[in-house]
């Protein structure tokens, strides 16, 4: 019996450790590979499709496919770093009547729930804070996992649509949607690397 006891105690300890480990390991944290990721926005300007990008983005993603309730996603965007490929336009976008980056340098999306659809894609629903205005937003996305250089990697791709005027991006003249459309598409293609 003593023999058995000596054996069962470490086994029990191991089981407890494993259980605890499983709970922790269930949600894997990922960090953004900024160099291989894009967050872009598309808009209609004077009847033509235009686009820009947000090169400075921070992503906090904790994910486990079998534990979506414990998974989380937060995205913080440095609005002032926006780039539409045209300095004059970028400066205009930073002005108080548009993004007002002096007052609202960042936008933030935080998911309160991540769900999986029947087709295997995902949807993060939560809220987007942009120019000081908070609005509910659903962001559908797909995940593709891979192992690259021995590390688990996730490719997160998706697209959502917001209306700039819902967030007050467009005061004064810019409230008009005649020359700059209200609808803005947000597309993202993120490479996320499993944190150690």
């Amino acid at each position, binding site marked *: 019996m003593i023999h058995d006891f000596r054996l069962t105690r470490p086994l029990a300890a191991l089981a407890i450790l494993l259980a605890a480990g499983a709970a922790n390991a269930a949600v894997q944290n990922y960090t953004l590979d900024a160099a291989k990721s894009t967050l872009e926005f598309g808009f209609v300007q004077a*009847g*033509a*499709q*235009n686009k820009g990008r947000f090169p400075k983005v921070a992503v906090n993603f904790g994910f486990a496919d079998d534990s979506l309730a414990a998974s989380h996603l937060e995205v913080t965007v440095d609005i002032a770093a926006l780039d539409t490929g045209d300095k004059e336009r970028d400066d205009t976008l930073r002005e108080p*009547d548009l993004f007002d980056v002096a007052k609202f340098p960042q936008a933030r999306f935080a998911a309160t729930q991540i769900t999986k659809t029947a087709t295997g894609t995902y949807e993060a629903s939560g809220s987007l804070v942009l120019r000081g205005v908070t609005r509910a937003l659903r962001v559908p996305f797909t995940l593709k996992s891979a192992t690259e250089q021995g590390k688990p990697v996730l490719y997160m791709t998706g697209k959502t649509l917001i209306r700039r005027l819902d967030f007050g991006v467009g005061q004064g*003249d810019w409230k*008009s949607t*005649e020359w*700059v459309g209200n609808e803005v598409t947000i597309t993202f293609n993120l490479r996320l690397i499993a944190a150690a």
Partner: protein
Amino acid sequence: MQVRNTIARWGSVAQFLHWLIVALIITQVILALRAEELHGMAKLAMLARHKSVGITILMLAVVRLVWRLINPTPPLPLTLKPYERFLANVTHAALYLLIFALPITGWIMSSARGFPVSWFNQFQLPDLVTKNRQLYETMLDTHEALAWTLGAVALLHLVAALKHHFVLKDTVLRRMLPFSKIP
């Protein structure tokens, strides 16, 4: 009035195209000058109109050239001296060239700047070149130089037309005017 050209005068289609393009070119100058004074949304709107009108001119230029090629051209008066005949031909060729070159350089300029062209918000035109700041600057200078050239050539054209009418007293101006009688 005749729809098609005859050897005595321009038909109604040729006249309509001529005068419509004149009106649109004047509109272009006004829109461009106003855009330069503005900024923000107002500038955006003014330039969008300038681009739309420019594309309209380009489309009309195509129609006009085709119409000219499939119609008789009223000849220049036989009394013209060889250098006058040469000057008239060069002026007309330059005007045709410019109503193509100005919209096209404007279109390239927009594409190079990364601001695609739309025709009155109805449809978007394809980009002629990929984004290139250097090319944009070059096209901006070219577009402006061509605009001044058009101004100069059009002035010469106008002076010549008035000379034909008031000095030479021939039908050269009247054959491009609607409602004018040609004996």
